[in-house]
């Protein structure tokens, strides 16, 4: 009984300590979100209406944007996770050295718009790489260099996000490898399993929850970030945040509710995705520690 009371007191204390941070988030982010939701349901004359959502789902620009957003985001997320996983698996011993860890930190410290600009400088047709190839005589003309940035498939955007997010994936996965009991891999080997069996049985179950969590974070971030697609994308189709920005700053104010609803719909999808994946991850983690999930 005393123990329970003590636990309750500790919970209250923890809640109290967290209150300033929670209040700041609720006031700043919460107010912004509430304001966006409210404005998405308001017509230009102040009427409450769901017209913006109806219009959104009849708008071809929205569908073109969302398709591009899903494609670019999925490819960038999957590539970042895969490359991050392979690099972590190969180099986690090397990353124990703090100076090696700094190498991973560097891309994280660079802002996304700077990373986008660097990709533009390197990979555009008038960029450093095309100049180098031209100087070396590998291409006859700079125009012969393939169009990687500001093209409709979003290759430049994907490149930027992969470069920026791989270190984030590595930093998320490193603790898993450091805390993993590597004797289990040896058990697998002595029971006749290959290195691949060892990866599937020992490493993958622990990696999966972190990969899902990291994937959800990356997906939500890439799908809603503005600077990189604005810098490296094309006019049509554009990624959803750019489309929302254009509706917001359009000369026609009647499109403003569309700007809000076009961000709220994917926001809700991302939220549902996060909630359901967190539930699945918790079950998976419990299974790892305790076996059966009751």
């Amino acid at each position, binding site marked *: 009984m005393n123990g329970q009371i003590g636990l309750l007191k500790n919970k209250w204390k923890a809640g109290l300590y967290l209150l300033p941070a929670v209040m700041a988030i609720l006031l700043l982010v919460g107010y912004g979100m509430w304001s966006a939701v409210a404005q998405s349901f308001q017509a230009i004359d102040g009427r409450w209406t769901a017209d913006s959502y109806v219009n959104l789902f009849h708008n071809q620009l929205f569908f073109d944007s969302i398709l591009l957003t899903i494609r670019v985001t999925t490819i960038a997320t999957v590539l970042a996770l895969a490359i991050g996983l392979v690099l972590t698996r190969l180099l986690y011993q090397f990353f124990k050295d703090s100076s090696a860890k700094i190498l991973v930190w560097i891309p994280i410290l660079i802002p996304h718009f700077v990373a986008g600009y660097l990709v533009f400088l390197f990979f555009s047709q008038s960029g450093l790489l095309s100049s180098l190839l031209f100087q070396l005589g590998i291409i006859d003309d700079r125009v012969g260099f393939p169009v990687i940035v500001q093209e409709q498939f979003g290759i430049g955007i994907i490149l930027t996000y992969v470069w920026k997010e791989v270190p984030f994936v590595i930093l998320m996965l490193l603790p898993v490898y450091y805390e993993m*009991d590597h*004797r*289990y891999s*040896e*058990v*697998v*080997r*002595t*029971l*006749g*399993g*290959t290195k691949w*069996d060892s990866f599937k*049985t*020992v490493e993958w*179950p622990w990696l999966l929850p972190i990969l899902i969590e990291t994937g959800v974070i990356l997906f939500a971030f890439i799908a809603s970030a503005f600077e990189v697609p604005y810098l490296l994308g094309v006019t049509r189709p554009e990624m959803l945040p750019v489309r929302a920005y254009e509706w917001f700053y359009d000369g026609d104010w009647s499109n403003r509710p569309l700007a809000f609803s076009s961000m709220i719909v994917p926001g809700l999808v991302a939220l549902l995705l996060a909630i359901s994946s967190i539930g699945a991850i918790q079950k998976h983690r419990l*299974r*790892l*520690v*305790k*076996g*059966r999930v009751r």
Partner: protein
Amino acid sequence: MNQLLQCNTLKKNYSQTTILNDVTFSLEKGEHFTVVGPSGCGKTTLLRCLAGLEVIDGGDIILNGKSLVTAKPEDRSVVLMFQDALLFPHLTVIENVTYGLKRRKTSKKDRIRQAEEMLEKVKLTRWNNAYPHELSGGQKQRVSLARALVLKPDLLLLDEPFSSLDATLRESLRGEVRELLRQENISSLFITHDRDEAIEMADRLAVMDNGEFIQIGLPYEVVTNPSSIESAMIIGEGMALEEGFIPLNKVSAVNENEMIEPNFISIPGKVTAITVKNNQPCYRVSWEKGTVLVTSRTQLHQGESVYLKAGRGTIKNYINQEKHRRQIQ
């Protein structure tokens, strides 16, 4: 018996440190070989080399006439049981036991049958669908043993598998494991730093120190006739002196005021504990190089200063005494 394993001048170094130094021994089919030695003497490294988890720096390992030096761990008919059970926490008991069989492409029906038979042998029939966290320490080690034995390896390597269990459980499991290994006719190489465990598990015993085997023989021989002072200190049941070894049954404790005849040697000590063995009071006496459990004709008290006494004629010379002397010089 036929030869199963031959290790010739095994060498293993970690950077500049020699861990295994020309370890040579052989093992017959069905034999249970135990290696005893202090922590850090290279026992575990030896097992890891045999299992293929470490690459050796010299020598050869021949199993069933074939060299294992370049063989991967999964290609050796050798299974290693670790100090901890290391059951996969997300798999049930039956899934853990069938794990190796699945890797060897045994059909599902066969692997379930074999696993169930093995679980019956380790007395865990009703626990097929339990998860490791639902088992006690002893049950976990039994599952680990079943997981290893179900593969019917030519050689089972046991790396102090009972060290994490309490004394009573350890004792009962030792007997069970030994019996099971005999039933299954599986050869074993058992390593431990526990003297009693080493003696009980061994058909043949090797004493290891500083990466070398310093004595190999039958348990009784090794215990009663240690070949060197090092061996005596690790495994000998008695007192290891510079001039030789005195078996424990020749030593007794006497009050420090008691007269000691000239043909007896006396070594000062102190009673640290009093116990009963075979319905007789016994005294644990600490002396310069350790402790011994001895009897006494007179009643002694805890904390009392005493002499450990033995006839000069009972001192057995070390077989390798010359070598030992050379080393000291």
